[in-house]
Each structure stands twice: as C-alpha cells, then as structure tokens.
C-alpha cells in the first residue's frame, strides 16, 4: 500500500473539484427530501386533482417513507455509483495519467484502494447526510421511527453500495472503455441482485443486505449474516483482483 495517503488526498480533492461529491450528495439529498414530502402530500394532491371520483389512500407511515428512500437509493443510487466509478481506472489507463502515477514508487494496490476509499467516502457521506434529512423530515411530517433501525438499514445499504463500487472498479480495470466497464459492472450487479430472489441461495448473496434492511424495518427479526459475510468477502476479492488485473495488462 505504498503511496496510499498522497493518492487518497488527490482522489478526495478530485471528488471535490470535479463536483462529483456535490452532484452525488445533491441527488441523494433530493431523494432524502422528496420521499417523505411526496408521501405526505400525495393523497391531498390526488384529492384535489380527482374531486369527482375521490381516491381513498391510507395515511402514509414512517416505515413506508424510510423503505421508499432506501429502495430508491438501492436502485438509482447504485446506478450513480457505477456511473461515477466506471471511468475511475479505465480513463486513467486510456490517458497516460495512470502510467505517470504508477511510474512513481506507489503500489498498484494503493492506486486502487485510494480510488475505492475516496469514491466510497463520497457515497457514504452522501448517504449519511441524505438519510439524516429523510429521517428528520419523516419524523416531522409523518411520524416517529426508530433511529437505530434506520441506521441499521442505512449501514446495510452502504455495504451493498461498497460492493457495487468494488465490482465497478474491477471492470474499470478490465476495460479501456469506461462505458463498456460501466455496462459490464451494471449487468453483473443486476444479475447477482436478481439471483438474490432465489430462495435459500439468495440469503448468501449481496442482495440479502437489502432484504435484511427491509426486514429490520418490518420488524420480522430475519437476519442474513451469511449474506453480509459473502458481500464483504466478494468486496475484498474484487479489491485484491483489481490491482492484479491492472498489473497483468502491462500498461
């Protein structure tokens, strides 16, 4: 991991100056604010639009608001993770910035880990801020909810997000074209998430983390430690493979 700290510093400054942090945080924040607002005022909006045929909607619940927020982040948020990370390695290799950096006394592992840490940090911060705002709005507009449960849900979502990031970085090191890398990464994430719907097998896959989060909120008491373990293992495996792939490519 030689050279990790200066590489991390550069990646974090890049996240800031390229507005990636701002864009990711803004999109997440938009979901954090709009989800409880929409749920709260949608029945009244519908009532005013369809006064002749009134639509009866059950009053929104805090659980519904928080579940919708995590559901949106679990789909659109992951798409943004892939979009941000797909060029992280591929673009550096296509241009000669990667070669110039790696011609200095820094390890390939540090080069990849700095990207993972900086982009991961961007999304964790965005998730934390937007989640806190969503929770506050939900409590204010709809009703009380357990902060511990929501924190647990958010942590599981963060785990899924980091796994998605590690997968995207792996594909970004495999392809020189960032669009191809993003397509392959998104395809893999969707395929593995789809497999999570298969009973029993699904409990051992990363998709189990999202299911665990929803079960936490519903209070069913279901836990998926194997799913968490496998996700952590796959994340580490991707992070170990990515520098090796890069080295074998002979820049």
């Amino acid at each position: 991991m030689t050279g990790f700290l200066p590489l991390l510093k550069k990646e974090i400054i890049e996240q800031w100056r390229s507005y990636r942090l701002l864009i990711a945080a803004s999109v997440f924040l938009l979901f954090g604010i709009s989800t409880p607002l929409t749920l709260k005022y949608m029945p009244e909006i519908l009532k005013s639009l369809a006064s002749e045929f009134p639509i009866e909607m059950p009053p929104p619940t805090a659980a519904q608001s928080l579940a919708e927020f995590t559901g949106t982040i679990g789909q659109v948020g992951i798409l943004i993770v892939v979009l941000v990370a797909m060029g992280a390695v591929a673009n550096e290799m296509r241009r000669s910035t990667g070669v110039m950096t790696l011609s200095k006394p820094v390890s390939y592992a540090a080069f990849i880990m700095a990207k993972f840490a900086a982009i991961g940090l961007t999304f964790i911060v965005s998730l934390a801020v937007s989640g806190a705002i969503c929770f506050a709005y939900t409590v204010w507009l709809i009703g009380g909810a357990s902060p511990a449960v929501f924190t647990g849900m958010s942590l599981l979502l963060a785990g899924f997000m980091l796994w998605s990031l590690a997968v995207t970085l792996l594909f970004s090191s495999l392809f020189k074209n960032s669009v191809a890398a993003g397509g392959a990464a998104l395809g893999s994430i969707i395929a593995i998430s789809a497999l999570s719907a298969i009973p029993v097998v699904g409990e051992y896959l990363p998709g189990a983390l999202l299911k665990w989060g929803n079960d936490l909120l519903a209070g069913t008491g279901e836990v998926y430690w194997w799913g968490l373990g496998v996700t952590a293992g796959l994340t580490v495996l991707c992070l170990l493979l990515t520098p090796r792939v890069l080295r074998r490519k002979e820049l």
Partner: protein
Amino acid sequence: MTAIKTSNLTKHYGAVKALDGLNLEVPENVVFGFLGPNGAGKTTTVKLLTGFARPTAGEAIVAGQRVRDGNLALKALTGFLPDVPDFYEWMTGQEFLQYVGELHRLPGAEIKSRAAELLELVALEKAAKRRIGGYSRGMRQRLGIAQALINRPKVLFMDEPTSALDPIGRKEVLDLISRLRQNTTVFMSTHILSDVERVCDLVGIIDKGKLVTVSTVSALQQRYARSIFEMEFIENPAAFVATLKNIAWLADAALVNLNGKPAVRVRAVDIGIARRELPRLVSASGLTLERYELSLPNLEEIFVEIVKGGQTK
C-alpha cells in the same frame, strides 16, 4: 559505471517478436538516443526497462536495480516521460509537482523548493498557478519533464519526447535534455534523427526488434563515410581534375559547382589510399587549397543505409 544493462532482453506478443535478445549497456551521464522506425521495438524496450511490461526472456538492470514487477526502489531512482504526457486537468502545474513529490515521499520543504527549481528549469514559473487544462502541448511536455525529474533520477526514460512538438517547442525540450546529462542518464527513444544528431552522445539503432548498432554519432559517420572527397581552391582547378582522371585509385573525378565556386569532387576506389595520397597530389598541383573534406553522411543517410541494408554491428 553502467546506468542501464540488458542481457538477452526479449519480449514476444504471441508470435510477434517485439524485442529479440537485446544486449545493451548505457554508461552513466550520457544522453542515449534509441532510434528505430515505427514498430521497431522502441516503446516495448522502454516498457520493459521501466517495469511496465514483463520480459519473455532475459533481464535488465537499471540504476543498479534489477527491473522486475513491483520494484519500488527502482521507481524511486528513475524518471519516466510517456510519449504523450497527460495530466489531471483540474490541477495547476505546481500542484501536480507537489503531488508527484509526495508520491516520491520527499519532505514537504524539499518538494516546495524542488518544484520551484524545476518550474524555472522548464520555463513554467509564470504558469505554475494556472490549471494544466489551459496549457499548450509544449508546456505539457515541459511539465512532463519536470515531473520526471522531481526525484533527481539517476536514469530518465523519455519516449518520443519531441514528436508532438512544433519547432520552437522541440528546440526548448532538446536544450533542456542536453543540460540534464550533468546529473542524469537520459534514455530517449525517438524516430526523429535530427534530434539524436543534436543532443545524443550515444546512439542505438533498433530494427524489427533487433539492436543493429550502438555507437557515437561521429563514429557512425566515420564508419559509414562514403569515399567521396571535396576540394575547393582559389584558382580554377580544371587542369588538376584532368590529372586526377588518370589516377588508378580514383574511380571518378569531376569539376563541380559548390556554393557558386568551381570545386573538385573525386570518388576513391580505395578510401585508405585516397586519404594518404590525395593531399600529396593537391600539394604537387600548386593550387591554393581553401577546403578539403571527406564527405560525411548525416544520421538520416546512415540510418537508411543500416535499416535498408540490414547491416549488423
């Protein structure tokens, strides 16, 4: 002392022999020009010497370090300028040098002073705080040289350092390279012969993955000197030319016009005899000699002769 030494360095890409048994020694503190046509194996050699590619066979020692995967000590002792250096456009020139200095783990104060020194060396001190995104190609090339020098490398690898530059940018970069030899060995791959002729102490010519020759430019000129002599006199040399036409060891003698003046050009059958005997004949002619020259080929002519003729060392 040897800065770069390769033994049977070989690289195959499938059935293609990109580099075929390179044996090369480059002494310290010289500018070494690695010359060859496109696809000859120059970039492959640079990749192998900088550790970005693994050899199929053989080995290389650079700055006393064996070149192998992950040898960070080697990277600390060398500098590298790729053929088209690219930068993080959002950084300023100064920030980029700061970043590179940090990657080399230089102390903060040293990075600051070294960056200032290098920015002055490459004439970028006025643009130091401007974003690299606004730099011209020549400025980027000079910044590329500065970043490669931040660690005071023992060996500096430059892949086609002037190929993308206009004549002024090329002159600036070549002037800079010629100043570097005081402290650094420069290994410069190029296909621009005039650059080599201008700054390189030693030349290696590679063709189809094989090293054809290593020599100084002047030794190459002597080795490939054609057996043509040119002479200029104050008087008209027509009578002297008639005399020379009857000399057995001369294949040809002619009166030619050089720079608006009549001159004598002779082609020798045996260059050794001609070198020895021709001055004697000139002396005996009674003419006043203004210029006497064994015509030397330029590097371009030698290069074409070597590569087309397939001559070996």
